[in-house]
Each structure stands twice: as C-alpha cells, then as structure tokens.
C-alpha cells in the first residue's frame, strides 16, 4: 500500500498519519505538499490530515479546497481511489463537495479534546477490520465538529448505510444523528472527526484506530491480488 498524506499550510497531524502507516503498518507513506499538482505515482490512499489548514480562515476547510493538490485528489477519488479525511481533512472533504453536509462550531462552544466511544455502524473498505456493532475508543480534538446536513440528506445517509462511525453515548459536539464519520455513495471516500492515527499503537494505550488503516490496507491488497 502506498499512502500519500497531504500537507496544507496549517496541517499538524500529517506526520502522525505518516508515522502510523510507515512504522506501525509497515507500508509506504510520504508527505505531499499542497502546491503539488499531481499525486505520487502508484498512490493507493490519500490522507487529508487534521490541523488548521489556512488557519481556518473563512470556514474550516474552505480554502484548502482550492489548493493545487485538491484537483488531483478529486480526480483520484472520481476514479475510485481511496481518500481518508480526518478531522480538518473531513472538513475539507465537505467543503470540496466530496461528501455532503457541513461542519459547525461544537454545540458546547468549547474545543473538545478527549477519548470518545464510537459505534461501528457499517462495514466499508475503511471499517471492515471491525464488526458492525463494535464499540471502539478513539480521541477527538476539534472546535468545529458538529456535523450538519439537511434532514433529507441525513435520512439518505442512514438509508444507504453511509454512517460508518457514530458517537456512542457521549456526543462531544452535538452532531446530527450522533454522526462521527460518513462515506460517499461509492464508499471510497471517508470523512471522520475522531483521530484514528492517535489511537494506533500500544505505547499510547489506544489501539482501536489501527483498524481503519488495516481495513484500507486489506481492501487495497485484496484488489491488487484479485
């Protein structure tokens, strides 16, 4: 698996994502600067990392969408390539219309930084390492994580089984339907507010996030051998 992690100005979880893929999973990972117009040849997965791209100017994720690399990311996604947006990366995917809806300030009006429980709601290429119904523990760290979409959009996400992760018991931001992560209809683009890359090794005593990366690796390796 070859993973390209995009660095926008203000990204701050890009190195963490590279670390997990390279040192925990043993796969190939490299950083890609936002002004690059092409993804590295052979990219299997693009990660849009957490952080504060463009200082969250105007709205979180609003300006990153216009970065040169995003044209290549959109084309990659349109061809069926896997894209994982974490936290600010999720916000970028929403602003870029690769996923439906928008993010609002947390209902508590506070930055939340804590480990939360998530229920795995659907088996997708990003979640196949878990069983549907599993509860996993992964940290969140955000101020604008209240997922919002019109009721008919939320209903469509539910009907189509596109809610992949849902806050279980403790919704840290007031998101609609307790949504923590969703996929596109083709199931090759996932956005999630919690940080699986911060819960992927024993040293952190949090390993539940590794399943997200393992799932994608299995999907990619399966396609390569098919």
């Amino acid at each position, binding site marked *: 698996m070859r993973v390209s992690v995009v660095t926008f100005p203000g990204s701050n979880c890009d190195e963490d994502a590279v670390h997990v893929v390279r040192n925990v999973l043993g796969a190939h990972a490299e950083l890609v600067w936002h002004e690059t117009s092409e993804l590295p040849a052979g990219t299997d997965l693009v990660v849009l990392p957490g952080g504060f791209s463009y200082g969250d100017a*105007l*709205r979180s994720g*609003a300006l990153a969408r216009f970065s040169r690399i995003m044209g290549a990311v959109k084309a990659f996604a349109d061809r069926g390539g896997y894209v994982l947006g974490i936290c600010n990366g999720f916000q970028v995917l929403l*602003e870029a219309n690769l996923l439906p*809806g*928008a993010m*609002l*300030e*947390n*209902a*508590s*009006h506070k930055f939340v930084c804590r480990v939360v429980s998530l229920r795995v709601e659907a088996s997708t290429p990003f979640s196949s390492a878990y069983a549907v119904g599993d509860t996993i523990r992964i940290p969140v760290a955000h101020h604008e994580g*209240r997922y*919002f*979409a*019109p009721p008919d959009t939320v209903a469509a996400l539910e009907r189509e089984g596109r809610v992949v992760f849902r806050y279980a018991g403790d919704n840290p931001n*007031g998101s609609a339907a307790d949504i923590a992560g969703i996929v596109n209809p083709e199931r090759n683009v996932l956005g999630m507010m919690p940080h699986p890359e911060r819960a992927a090794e024993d040293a952190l005593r949090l390993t539940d996030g590794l399943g997200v990366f393992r799932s994608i690796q299995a999907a990619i390796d399966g396609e390569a051998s098919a």
Partner: protein
Amino acid sequence: MHAKVLVTLRQGVLDPAGQAVATSLNQLGFSQVKGVRIGKVLEVELDDMPEDEARKHLEEMGRQLLANTVIEDFEVEF
C-alpha cells in the same frame, strides 16, 4: 467600488457563540436582549461597474466560496 457581503447562519442552525454573547449581555444588565446570532461581514473592493453587474458577481462569489449554503445565507449590500 465597494460592496459588503453579509453572511449569516441559517434559521434553525444553533449558534452557541451567539448564545454566549447574549448571556454576557444579560449579565451586563442588558436584560432586554433575547438573543444574538453572529455572522460575518466581508468588505469587498471591486472594479467600478454598474451595481446590478457587481451584484451578479458577488452572488456567484457568495455561492462558490463566501458562504457555505448548507448552513449559511448571504446578502449583498452596496
């Protein structure tokens, strides 16, 4: 020429920052305040042109970037 684009949260979208300001105003003694909603004003400098032409450009800017129409409304003023 100069224009203003006012971006506001859509009706029904919770505005916790606005609520915090309203609470503070009440605490200051402004007991007549029932609610506050916070928006943004973007002051835009443009080439001179008729207002209706400028309005078309600004409305396109609003839809494409200045507002996220899933959660926000916007108005153009001169």
